[in-house]
């Protein structure tokens, strides 16, 4: 094959790939649905809520929700600590720009730390730690118990998963 022929072939392949990519890439309008379809953890995606209001899809969580959600936003995710540990590490899934509400209850004094956002709150018996912030950084962030960390125990109590909006 001549040099020009080879180069044409390469150029054609590149054009086809780029064009196909642009056509097949999920558009912004279906982004919410795409997110639910592709990255949802089995058993955690809540399809009706995802396709609902586009302003603020509520955080999906396996933890029991608070009985009285504040009137101005999605329900808070409640995390229960027993002896500075959780029964199961849950993912708190939100889209970028959403408000994250977390309530951490503990039967022992502790300090709860949200990595990346670098937020810390004290918690103790009868005085839950409350977090309310806008998820403006994409990525996965660990939520940890400082008390468990100091004792050399497994400190992870939940993960905050912020998907691109």
């Amino acid at each position, binding site marked *: 094959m001549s040099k020009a022929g080879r180069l044409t072939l390469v150029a054609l392949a590149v054009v086809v790939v780029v064009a196909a990519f642009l056509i097949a890439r999920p558009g912004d309008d279906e982004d919410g649905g795409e997110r639910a379809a592709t990255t949802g953890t089995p058993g955690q995606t809540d399809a009706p809520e995802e396709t609902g209001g586009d302003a603020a899809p509520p955080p999906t969580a396996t933890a029991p929700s608070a009985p009285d959600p504040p009137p101005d936003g999605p329900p808070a995710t409640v995390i229960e600590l027993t002896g500075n540990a959780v029964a199961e590490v849950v993912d708190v899934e939100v889209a970028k720009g959403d408000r994250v509400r977390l309530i951490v209850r503990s039967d022992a004094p502790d300090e709860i730390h949200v990595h990346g956002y670098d937020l810390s709150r004290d918690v103790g018996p009868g005085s839950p730690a409350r977090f309310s912030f806008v998820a403006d950084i994409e990525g996965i962030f660990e939520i940890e118990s400082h008390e468990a960390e100091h004792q050399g125990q*497994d400190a992870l109590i939940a993960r905050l998963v912020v998907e691109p909006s």
Partner: protein
Amino acid sequence: MTQVAHGIVGRSDLPIPEWLFGWAAAVVLVVSFVALAVLWPEPKLARARERALPALSRVVLSRPVELVGGAVGVFLLGLVLYAGFEGTETVTANFTPTFVYVAFWLGLVAVSILFGDVYRAVNPWRAIGRAVAWVARTAARTEMPAPMAYPERLGHWPAAAGIFLFATLELVVSNGDAPRTVAIAALVYSTVQFIGMALYGVEEWSERGDGFAVYFSLFARISPWTVKEGTVRLRPPLAGLVELEPRAGTVGLLAVMIGTVTFDGAAESALWTGIAPDLADAFQTVGLSPVRALELTFLIGLAATCGIVYGFYMLGVRGAQSVGGGFSADQLARAFVGSLVPIAFAYVAAHYMTLLLYQGQAIFILDWPPFGYLSSNPLGTADTDIFGTAGQAIDYGVISATAAWYWMVGFVVVGHVAALTVAHEKALTIYSDVKLAVRSQYWMLAVMVGFTSLALWLLSQANQ
């Protein structure tokens, strides 16, 4: 399950979406077939001309620059030890873990790709070795040859062992990111380097046995820069990999380089988090403490992954051997090992890019003064703020998650193409018959598609 190391990570990557995974895989296949279609019949990189740059050489290779480079390296090694032993035990507030695992281990890979073997100029152990040798030579007023010749059979094996142990510290040891642990490891590594240099000579050991020196110099071969006969030279990128002369253990070293990153990625996948607790439980029943049982589990996982990478490459080599040409499997494995370097780079780039971009800001920022909060307050004890930047936080806005996905996938695809290029060039130089060379490349292509698909799969499994 207990988190192993990685205490310095504030943010982890989202897995790439399925549609991007599918697209990237398709692009890799298309690129591969295009590569087959355009396989050039004459070696190009191997015969490429090098351009000497005498003016640049006079500056870059001058004695003052050499002294400054060595001094910077020794100073940073000293700071790593000082902060590690004297600074706070809080992993994220101490200079040492982030500097070693992010700025040094990842940052120098990027520097090597862009600017060549810069590490050679700042390698603290080489600098100290050369200084000691100079003093000894001056005092004795005679040349001091190394007491022993470096054994051929040893080759790159000490380097492979060094990189494997470093990865063990990072990924297996439960408090491997504790400042004190990192400082102790640096002392141990220093001791081994000094013994190696004393026995075999400074340059001989640095080029073969010093794991970090060998690691960064391999990546530097991707770059267009090289130093030969005392001058800086420019050549086409990747040309350095075609002329790489492998030693014993070079294939093992590459298997370790790819295997350790693979394991770091795979350890986040559902596959590993399904197996690991069972294995750890089994070790606990034979009397290991929970932490030791988990460490042993991860060590086995790390070693097994390196073994699988080695085995997969050798499988492709056996295939290439079957097309004829009269080469032994070992000869072919060494001949094509250069093509694994771009793959190793793609793995590192895809897996650690965001860690370097985000956590690297703790050490270095694109502002003035260019020092992150850990450089300003290396001990983390809050009574020092050398550059007035100790209060700064990491800017997570430097790249969006979506843009990061495209970059990661881009690195993997470009690494794939580079690997194919190097393997094909090498085939043209070793086979006398072009037909045999091309047929051997069907096998190498299969190997590369395998490694690249694995890299994409790891990206899709990240932090699940």
